[in-house]
């Protein structure tokens, strides 16, 4: 093993200050329920987390980020820890148009063990947030949350592979705007006209 990136859950996790829903609560819940159906198909161990306060706050997606293809080989919590990480994704009211972000809730990724060039994260003092997308790229897809989760899963997958092989082969977008847009355009070209129309 080259380096141990994943560690035991810290036991402490940030309490998220979730926003109160200002718009139509029913419509928001409908959208959220619809989304979780798609999410569960790919990530069976993720589920919706609603607030129980009087004021209806936004929901979050919470649970083990493990794709269904891997999930079937997990028999207990020990396996979950080995194959995935525990995440939380707040679903702001405009999650359909703006997307969201993936929080490594129990800080299971030891970023010190990841070489700087492969550190795909945003970080502040409280949250450990995975870098899952570029805003330009996100504008091109319809189901943004699903896209973000898949991206997070691919990143975790690559870190797990890196632990064993020492090679990081994931073709990530550069963080700089100009370079990212250049790369996105290259990729769009590969998809041809159909994709341009789709956007």
């Amino acid at each position, binding site marked *: 093993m080259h380096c141990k990136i994943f560690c035991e859950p810290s036991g402490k996790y940030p309490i998220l200050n979730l926003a109160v829903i200002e718009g139509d609560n029913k419509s928001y819940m409908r959208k959220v329920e619809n989304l979780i159906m798609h999410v569960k198909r790919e990530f069976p161990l993720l589920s919706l987390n609603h607030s129980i306060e009087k004021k209806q706050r936004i929901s979050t997606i919470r649970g083990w980020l493990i794709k269904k293809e891997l999930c079937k080989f997990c028999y207990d919590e020990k396996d979950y820890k080995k194959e995935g990480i525990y995440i939380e994704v707040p679903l702001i009211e405009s999650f359909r148009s703006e997307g969201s972000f993936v929080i490594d809730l129990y800080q299971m990724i030891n970023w010190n063990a990841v070489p700087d060039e492969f550190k795909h994260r945003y970080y502040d003092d409280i949250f450990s947030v995975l870098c899952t997308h570029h805003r330009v790229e996100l504008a091109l*897809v319809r189901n943004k949350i699903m896209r973000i989760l898949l991206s997070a899963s691919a990143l975790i997958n690559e870190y797990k*592979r890196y632990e064993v092989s020492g090679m990081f082969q994931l073709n990530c977008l550069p963080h700089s705007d100009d370079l990212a847009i250049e790369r996105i355009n290259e990729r769009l070209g590969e998809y041809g006209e159909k994709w341009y129309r789709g956007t």
Partner: protein
Amino acid sequence: MRKGLHAYLNVNNLNEIINKEDKNTTREDLTRIVHILSTYYNSIAKILNKNGLGYIEKISGERVHFVFEEHGEPLNADKILETLISFHILNYNFINKLRKYSGLDNFQVSTGADYGVYYNYEHVKNGKVEELTSIGYPANRAAKLTEKAGNNEIILPLELVKRLSYDLKDAVRQIDRSEMKRFYSKYENGDYVRINVNQLVNQFAFDDIDVRTYVETQYSKINFEDVVFRHPKKLISFDQLSEKNNRKVDGIPFHADLRGFTKMFKEDGSNLKEMVRTTKEVLDIMESSVVENSGIKVQFQGDKIVALFHKNAEHGSEEYIENAIDAGFVLIGKIIQFNKLALNNLPNIKMSVGIGQSIGELYATRIGLKRNKHNILLGRINNLANKAEDEYALEDSIVITSDLYGRLKKSLQDIFRMHPDNRRFYITEEDYRNYSRKRIKEVRTKESKQYNKEGKLGQYNAL
């Protein structure tokens, strides 16, 4: 716990008839087989409904499992024997003589039955009883006895025959205990007799006008032209199948049998409460192992599950092969984990699974009367999978046919070895943890490659 007589009626030569019909170049499907089975089994159900003595628990291809339950007073031995004999006469006098089936070999049937205590499990799905299956020794023993009964023969417990009010004279022969031990390794005690139905045909001249009319209506209700076998584009839903609307698939029949489960039931019923919960958990584990791997549950047969993995556009052309092997290991792993967790409540018990699989063309249908329909797989390939599980699978092992072995990718072939008892089968006893590790590595590499190939775009455009 309930008490009663479990009986199996077996069409002994159905596999040969199917094989013949399967190879018949003028017909490309099993239309006639589905038609004749439907006519025969529905007529049996009709007789049972009419005399109110018992009910059909399961139809599974060549076998019908029916139960005569005891409600307070002892079973009426006379009526039960008459009913069992009527099923044989129905076959010889009516079914085999129907003009539409001329050219098909006559059905050769035998029956085996045993009496005792059993547990009835109702498999509930979405608040609805989806399937009934019973677990206990009588059904297991009856199945074994049926296998050993000759054509037109019924094997019954001596205890039941002694209660008959009439004499069966020369038609009855007691089975030697040593003979019982020879063909049934788990045999402990009890005496059984063979009854030769040929010698009783005159004594029990079964000619029920209602049943005869029913057979004729049932027979003429469906024309051969109405029976279709379609190739499915997506995963089959058995709810949509019927005698008329069948499917022909390229797929893998998956037979998995729990070993050591029946032993967990105490005969006095003292642990029934725990066992009700355990049964539900174990059968749920079996079903979820199949469904999680894009397979379809066909039916439970006691503590056995029959499932199907088939080729379809939804899941990639050859993916179903990997999925079926994965499902086998996932099931073995889950049962081993279950053993560990259940150890506190059910000490000294070790459950294991034996799994059989084969590959090729097979037929899916749904037969039975209203509100008692049964999902069925037919074809030579299904019989091979059953044989692999029943005769060659050891504890926590998967046995596959050489055809399926040939279709596996190299990394999966490596974990199988030729079966020592039959060169046409391959067996694996690989540890499920090792297998999982290997497959996780493969899945991760595949995902990474796919992600780089498709880029971050192109997926999940649906809302």
